[in-house]
């Protein structure tokens, strides 16, 4: 498995940048709140991939431990966020973020 380190770390940075940009693009493009959640997950995963790549290249386990914490926080965030969305859907019948501007006043 030593051969996998022959891949330059620049390629991993490039891949993470592309995945992160796709996540930002999705957040800007869609109006369905669930898809926006999924795009946030995509961004978190791009950062996770970068952390693991640097951790492997530096021979330091701290990055991989941080990925654990990011996964834990992401799981908690998804649980709470989907509960809030289910609540909103039960009360308004929609998850369109453009009709969710009732919090303004």
């Amino acid at each position, binding site marked *: 498995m030593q051969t996998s380190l022959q891949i330059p770390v620049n390629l991993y940075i490039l891949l993470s940048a592309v995945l992160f940009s796709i996540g930002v693009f999705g957040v*800007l493009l869609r109006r369905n709140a669930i898809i926006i959640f999924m795009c946030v997950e*995509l961004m978190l995963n791009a950062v996770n991939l970068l952390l693991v790549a640097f951790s492997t290249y530096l021979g330091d386990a701290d990055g*991989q431990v941080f990925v654990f914490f990011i996964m834990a926080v992401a799981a908690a965030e998804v649980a709470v966020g989907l509960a809030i969305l289910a609540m909103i859907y039960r009360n308004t019948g929609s998850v369109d973020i453009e009709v969710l501007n009732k919090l303004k006043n």
Partner: protein
Amino acid sequence: MTVYLFYLLSFIAIISALMVVISKNPVYSVLFLIMTFFAIAGHYVLLNAQFLAAVHVIVYAGAIMVLFLYVIMMMNFNKEAEPSKTVFSQIIATIAGGILLITLVGAIRIYDIEFAISTNATSIGLISNLGKVLFSKFLLPFEISSLLFLAAMTGVVLLGKNNTHS
């Protein structure tokens, strides 16, 4: 050989990430997101982080995505009611995302990043090594994350409870 594997996994990850964004049906978005997560798990295996790959598949593809699918199927969407932005906003969103990508790529292209590959790089992804670091150096954050889970669990139960007075 591993370089080809890297390109294949990257291709799958990027294409299915794009399909998450542009597919109209939310159920297809979830399925493509699962595909992206499996491709990223393959990248973890390629980076000698085997335990993290297993945890990634279990947590994301097994738990979080089931939660997403459950919520989506509870909310019966149809394709006609799917909200979409105006063409002007879509063009603006595409330009903004593209400019972000160009900025990131341009910022990393001017640096020629070279790391010395550590000799113990093949063994740090194993569970014994990760457990040692997690329970010695990161013991306090580990305990705090358990508190975070307790708070999240309580909050979800309170939110999901059917309040009868409304």
